[in-house]
């Protein structure tokens, strides 16, 4: 791959695009907070090191002036409306910044009655892409530093939001690395695939960061923490790891919004999104279901049709 040529092409994303998005977010956040239309805005604030960003909850117009949007804004903020942060919504309406992939998570959470549409104000970003984990961010957003999910994103342009900010710059065509990797794995024999995943799963240290970061892993008691009876071994060793990964993929099947946050936070670089993607492909094929940016009443595994495929059943 000619990295330099790609870089030039991607560098054509004008930095003024990020500035424009940042300005639009600030204007709207200040307006919402000073009019008291919302009690808080969940967005991104500059990190302590240059070029980084951290999720933040701002409650005053002054703080809202600090909000930013840059390729370092990787987090899926919908996480900050559930789980430990569930209390946030009790205080009143909250505005939230969402990229296309984050919107799918928000829509999913609405479908699962975890978040009410009327409780939030969504500021959707026409998103050009964000940095991948461990990428070299010095040259800005390039072919080398863009996240894998963004290479084949279908949701650059948000839908169904209360406010859309930014105009999408022209985006280069990038090779779909994840789709290629999926196709490669599919073409292997079951034994080879088992060997591949065994190796991958053996790296897992069971830090459960993938679970903590996932907006859909909101169960108050996770099956993998249960010990009476124990459903799966909790120590980071081969059998338990394999079981954990199968259970995780299964529990997210038909719900996952494809934000790839689980993969981003994995300290052991396990390609979790391949499992998510594989399940999404299957559910698309079988039940014509796709995660979308607007809430759907039911997911593919919580509804059924009498004539669903049963060719695998005797």
């Amino acid at each position, binding site marked *: 791959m000619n990295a330099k040529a790609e870089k030039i092409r991607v560098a054509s994303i004008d930095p003024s695009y990020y500035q424009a998005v940042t300005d639009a977010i600030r204007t709207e956040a200040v307006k919402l907070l000073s009019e008291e239309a919302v009690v808080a805005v969940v967005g991104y604030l500059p990190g302590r090191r240059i070029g980084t960003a951290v999720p933040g909850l701002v409650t005053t117009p002054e703080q809202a002036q600090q909000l930013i949007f840059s390729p370092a804004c990787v987090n899926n903020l919908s996480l900050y409306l559930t789980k430990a942060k569930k209390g946030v919504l009790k205080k009143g309406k909250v505005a939230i910044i969402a990229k296309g992939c984050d919107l799918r998570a928000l829509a999913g959470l609405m479908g699962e009655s975890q978040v009410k549409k009327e409780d939030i104000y969504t500021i959707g970003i026409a998103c050009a892409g964000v940095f991948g984990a461990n990428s070299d961010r010095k040259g800005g957003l390039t072919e080398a530093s863009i996240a894998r999910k963004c290479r084949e994103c279908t949701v650059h342009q948000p839908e169904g939001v209360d406010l859309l900010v930014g105009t999408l710059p022209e985006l280069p065509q990038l090779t779909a690395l994840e789709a290629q990797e999926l196709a490669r794995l599919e073409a292997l024999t079951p034994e080879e695939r088992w060997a591949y995943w065994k190796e991958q799963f053996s790296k897992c240290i069971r830090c459960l960061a993938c679970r903590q970061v996932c907006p859909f892993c909101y169960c108050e008691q996770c099956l993998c923490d249960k010990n009476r009876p124990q459903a799966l071994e909790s120590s980071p060793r081969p059998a338990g790891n394999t079981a954990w990964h199968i259970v995780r993929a299964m529990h997210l099947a038909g719900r996952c919004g494809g934000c790839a946050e689980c993969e981003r936070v994995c300290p052991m670089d396990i390609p979790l999104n391949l499992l998510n993607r594989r399940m999404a492909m299957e559910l698309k094929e079988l039940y014509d279901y796709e995660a979308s940016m607007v809430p759907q009443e039911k997911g593919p595994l919580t509804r059924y*049709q009498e004539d669903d495929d049963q060719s695998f059943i005797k």
Partner: protein
Amino acid sequence: MHAEKLQHDFEPKIVAFVCTWCTYAGADLAGTSRMQYPANVRVLKFPCTGRIDPVFILRAFQKGADGVLVSGCHPGDCHYMAGNFHARRRFAAFRALLGFVGVDLERLQFSWVSAAEGGKWVEVVTELTEKVRAMGPMKEFKALEDEEQWSGALNTPELREAFESIT
């Protein structure tokens, strides 16, 4: 009166997760009608196929099953109306996942067996047992389990013997 018992090199362990209203009754019927079927199958009874969590299947393989059968009421006959319709989707997804991870799906069978189908129960169980027998033991999950106990990195005959005495 017993059919002559064949000696096999390998007796597979088959775990059957069944719903109590149809398949369990069907298996019972097979028994009371004195039909013969392989004794390899261990039957676990559930209220409904909707209660059969995919993690149970996983656990069966992990704990040494060579084959797994999941069976319940025919579509439309579920005693809780839609348990088996939901289960059907869940199992379709689970199969795809196992296949992607590299599990041989021939070891996992799903079926609908009603309370009147003692004969079908015998057929399904016999077929799966013989298929799995021909495939040999399910090694993949067992290997993981062994590694969980003992990494194999310190491979001395004494350790091996001690390990075998406890497993």
